[in-house]
Structures are given as structure tokens and as C-alpha cells.
């Protein structure tokens, strides 16, 4: 039997690095890893590369702790560990945006250990909604472009970059539609499957992903309405790449209706029209997208954003999936939790790690939370 569209997405999401190896073999192209979605991956795409998000490695850490303290997030820790174990031998280059201190310092450790590999840091502005930030980022991306072109020994035209921005926008719009179809009919696709689709988008050439996603959207547009599940949940947090954890929601009859996750909607929400200087367009998008908690803005209030998301998606509660030792998310947590409580929205914090860990305590918490939501709904 041939693989269904969802099975393909899930396979790639579960083993993105295998996909990269296979893509390389198939096309003879080059693969670059990037460490945070604030990296202007459109530039890599324009040069014909496969930009792929490095999102940790699902194996216990044995080498990384000789190079960095263990109290950094497991995304950085397991990625470094995997690199030291030669698991990323397929990467032709690695690029780091300065999103948080851990990624910044990972860049330095990486350079010391893999001196022959192309690697570069793009220093992003922290305060993103001031005009100076846009000018600065436009210059910084241009600086990276020059260095990257020198490495390639070829120049990338503005037209090619604009074309890639267009291809990325098309993918962003398709993912946005996936989310709106899910909001309308959350029983039609599992929460795990939706995150798999987004995870696959971070790993595949965008044209290929959009084509596959188009088939899925076609199926979802005509999917029969289901209203089996009793509890509706919004997810918030950073990197959620835990198929087993996501399966628990299904097991407990809770549907995911929307998310504000780094590996979810934050990856694709907001597009900038392709006109004018494409580098500036990339910079503008990065200024206007739903910000990561590591960014500072004066106009965006995540507390209100989350409360609105819950109301608009008619959710019963919020599950916060936070990677342990992610400082930006951890510092925001008490404030977000307080506002949700004040808004009478039940919430649950689940700390996660990239490497394999026991699911039992998470099961107990999630089950109790779902029982609580069901009880609240019945009353």
C-alpha cells in the first residue's frame, strides 16, 4: 500500500535528517542547517540549497557536557552532542541566528570543533518594533549574503531571492489555511499530524512541501464535520517535537484547536508581499511576525494574544509545552499564567526535553488536566 500524505509528513517529521540525506542523494544539492526560524532561510533556498532546521537529537547526551554546562536547553545540548557524534555529517554548512545566549554560544563551540565547515552567525536585533531594527537587519542580512556568496563562489540575484520569498509565502499561506481548517473542524486531523506537517516544512524544500500540503488541504476541505472530542486545547510554548506526547492528547480525547508554538504557528504566520528590495522584505517580515519570547516589542502583548486565541478558537484550556532551561520562555511563564488565571482560562505547564524521557508523569498531569476541563464543561 502506498504511503498516505499524512504518513509522508509524519515520516519526514520523525526522521528529518534521513530526509536530508535522501534529498542530497536524489538531487546532488547542498544542505545547510539553521538553528532558529529567525534565520533568513529564503537566501539559502534562493541559492538552491536545502535549508533545514536543526531541532535537537533524540538520544541521550554523552559528549556535549564536556563543552557546555548541562543547564542549557536540550535543543542546543542534544544538537551539539549529535554533531560531536558525527550524526550531522550530511550538513554542508550551519548558520546561527543570535536568538538566545545558548544558540550564540553554540555557534562558537561549533566553530571550534568543526573549523572546516562553513558556519556563520546572523546577529538579529532584540528590540524588533523600532525602525532602526529594520534598517539594521536589512544590512545584517546583506552582510550574510555577501559572505555566503563568497563561499558559494557565485552570486544570488535579487530576482532569485524574490522568487524564493514568493515560494515561502505560498507555503506560509498553505500552512495558515491548514490551521484555519483545523480550527473549524479540529476532529478532522490530529494535533500530532498538524505539528508533523509544520515540522516537515522546516525540513523539506518548500516547493515539495507545498505540493504535498496541497493534497492534504484538498482532503481536509471536504472532510466530514466531527464533534466527538469533548475538550478543546490551545498549545503554547517553544519547540514541541514529541510524537508520544502529542499522541496522549488523542488518547485522552482532547483536540488541539490552535497553537502559539515555535514549531507551530509562529513559524509561518505573517507574510510580506513580494515587491521592492527582497532583503528588506525578509527583514520586514522578521520584524512583524509573532515574536519569539527572546525578542522585545512594545506593541505586541502575548498575554492578550493568547487569551484572544483561546476565545476565538473556543478552547477550554491552554497546555504550555516549555523546553526545560529555555530562559526566554521560562521568564514569560509566570506572567502568562497569571493572565490566563485572571481570564478564567485553565492552564497546564509541561516541561519537556529533546532526549528520550519517561512519559508517565506527563500522562498523569495531562490526564488530570483533561479531567478538570471535562468537569468544568459539565458544570
Amino acid at each position, binding site marked *: 500500500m502506498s504511503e498516505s500524505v499524512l504518513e509522508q509528513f509524519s515520516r519526514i517529521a520523525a526522521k528529518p535528517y534521513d530526509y536530508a540525506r535522501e534529498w542530497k542523494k536524489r538531487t546532488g544539492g547542498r544542505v545547510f542547517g539553521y538553528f532558529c526560524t529567525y534565520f533568513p532561510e529564503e537566501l539559502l533556498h534562493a541559492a538552491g540549497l536545502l535549508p533545514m532546521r536543526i531541532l535537537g537529537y533524540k538520544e541521550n547526551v554523552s559528549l556535549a557536557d564536556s563543552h557546555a554546562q548541562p543547564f542549557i536547553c536540550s535543543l542546543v545540548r542534544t544538537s551539539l552532542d549529535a554533531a560531536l557524534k558525527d550524526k550531522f555529517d550530511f550538513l554542508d554548512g550551519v548558520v546561527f541566528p543570535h536568538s538566545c545566549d545558548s544558540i550564540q554560544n553554540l555557534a562558537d563551540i561549533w566553530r571550534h570543533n568543526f573549523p572546516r565547515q562553513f558556519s556563520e552567525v546572523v546577529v538579529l536585533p532584540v528590540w524588533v518594533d523600532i525602525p532602526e531594527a529594520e534598517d539594521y537587519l536589512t544590512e545584517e542580512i546583506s552582510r550574510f549574503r555577501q559572505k555566503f556568496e563568497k563561499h558559494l563562489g557565485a552570486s544570488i540575484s535579487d530576482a532569485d531571492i524574490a522568487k524564493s520569498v514568493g515560494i515561502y509565502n505560498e507555503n506560509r499561506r498553505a500552512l495558515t489555511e491548514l490551521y484555519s481548517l483545523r480550527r473549524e473542524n479540529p476532529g478532522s486531523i490530529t494535533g500530532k499530524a498538524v505539528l508533523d506537517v509544520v515540522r516537515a516544512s522546516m525540513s523539506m524544500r518548500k516547493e515539495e512541501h507545498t505540493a504535498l500540503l496541497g493534497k492534504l488541504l484538498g482532503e481536509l476541505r471536504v472532510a466530514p464535520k466531527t464533534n466527538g472530542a469533548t475538550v478543546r486545547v490551545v498549545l503554547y510554548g517553544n519547540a514541541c517535537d514529541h510524537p508520544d506526547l502529542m499522541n496522549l492528547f488523542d488518547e485522552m480525547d482532547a483536540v488541539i484547536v490552535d497553537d502559539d508554538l515555535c514549531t507551530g504557528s509562529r513559524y509561518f504566520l505573517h507574510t510580506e508581499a513580494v515587491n521592492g528590495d527582497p532583503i528588506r522584505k525578509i527583514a520586514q517580515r522578521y520584524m512583524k511576525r509573532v515574536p519569539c519570547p527572546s525578542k522585545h516589542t512594545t506593541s505586541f502583548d502575548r498575554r492578550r494574544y493568547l487569551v484572544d486565541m483561546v476565545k476565538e478558537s473556543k478552547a477550554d484550556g491552554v497546555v504550555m509545552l516549555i523546553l526545560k532551561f529555555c530562559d526566554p520562555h521560562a521568564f514569560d511563564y509566570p506572567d502568562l499564567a497569571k493572565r490566563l*488565571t485572571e481570564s478564567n482560562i*485553565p492552564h497546564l505547564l509541561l*516541561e519537556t526535553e529533546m532526549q528520550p*524521557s*519517561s512519559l*508517565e*508523569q506527563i500522562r*498523569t*498531569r495531562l*490526564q*488530570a*488536566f483533561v*479531567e*478538570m476541563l471535562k*468537569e*468544568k464543561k459539565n*458544570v
Partner: protein
Amino acid sequence: MSEPLFGGCDIGSTTGKAVLVRDNSVIASVIVPCLPRPEKTAELVINEAISQAGLSSVKDVTYLVGTGYGRVRIPFANEDISEITCHARGASWLRSSVRTAIDIGGQDCKVMGISDTGRVREFVMNDKCAAGTGRFFEAMCRVLHVSLEDISSLSLESKAPATITSQCSVFAESEVITLLNEGVDVADIAAGINFAIAARLVSLARKVGLVQDVTVTGGCAKNVGLIKCLEEKLKAAITLVPGDPQIVGALGAAILAREAFARA
């Protein structure tokens, strides 16, 4: 035909508990140490409860809810409910004025905010490590060569509780060994252990907020020294539920079994 019989079976990390309820009263309650397999613990504890109630078979139980770590592996359970929901229900059934329950089990601890209808309003659970739980006490007892009961009574005798700084049970064990080698009195170390655990629970409890009545459930609630330390650290009175605090989860499961049966 006699009145329906409801059961709760709580297979925890350290002990298995079973409670049988009929006509709004507990007719059997049993605690056994865990066997390596949760299924076996469940069978052992329910059979003892069945014989305590003077019955012949688990088939006499009309409806049974499983809870605890082994809850999905109880072969005779009609459904499973998390121990958080069960402890809250059990505590509130035993004392309807309870609004906050702190459950200190063998492997983890939870703080539950309870509504006036006996439902979980909010809860928090400890981190992955076993510091601040029954396992922690067991490890300390091994080092001190005392029983769990001794920790409680020794702690009450202490005039100058020792300071144990580590949050981790493995490191705390090394700290206790250091204290012993320094010649610190065992009673002071016992009190230090109780204070260290109380301090951890306070930060957990503050996340939920303390509303009176506050109660403590789970096996560790039998440690009177710990309860005293907790009251001091929480700056709040603790009202224990009547009877054995260790069976509150299983009791809650039995009460929820009765409610589920009534709904069906």
C-alpha cells in the same frame, strides 16, 4: 440483591491501596507494598480487600476505578482516573471543608486547589526527581539506620534542626552522610530532612495558593514531624483528614466509581 459495591484501586510507585465502599461507608481498606508488576500488586491488594469485606470475588464489585502510576494496568478496573482527581475527591469526601490538598506520595507530590464541590480547580506536581517524596525519606532512613516512623518522632525531639541545602535526593544523601561524620545529632538531621522537604513543598504550594482548610494526604502525611515543619514553613494550619491519609487516593477512586455508576 444487596446494595451496589464500589471499589477504588490505587497502584502507586511504592504501595498498592484498595478501598471498597457500600452505602456511603468504607467497608474495606488495604495497603500492600508494591510487587514488581502493577497487575500483580492490583490483584494482591483487591483480593485482600475482598476478603476483608467478607466477599468472595472481585466480581462482587459493581464498578471500580483504577488510579496511581499503575492505573492503566489494573486488569479488573472499569476505568482509570488520574490520582490528582482521586486525591482531591477523597480528601473532600472525608472533610468537605478541604480546599487545598497536598499529596506526598512515594514518587511525587502534588498540590491541588479544590472547589466547594470537591473538584480539582487547579494543581501542580513536582519536577521529575523524587526529592520531597516517600522515596527521599526511604533513602534518608537507610543512611540514618532508622525507620520511617523514627524520622517523625526524632524530628519532633530536635532542638537545632540541621540545614540540608540540596534539592536533589542523591546529593541530600551525601549531605546527610557528611552531617553524620561531623557528629551532628540524628534527631537534628531528621528535623533537617523534614524542613528540607517542607521547603520544597512550600514553593509548589505557593503556585496554587493556600486556601483553608489545608490537608495533607499520601503516606508521608503520617510523618507528624513533617506536618509540623510544613505548618511552620507554610505559615498555615494543616487539618488532617480522619483515618489513614495513605488511602485517600483509593477512596477518592471508589467515590468516583460510585458517581460514574450513578451517571451511567
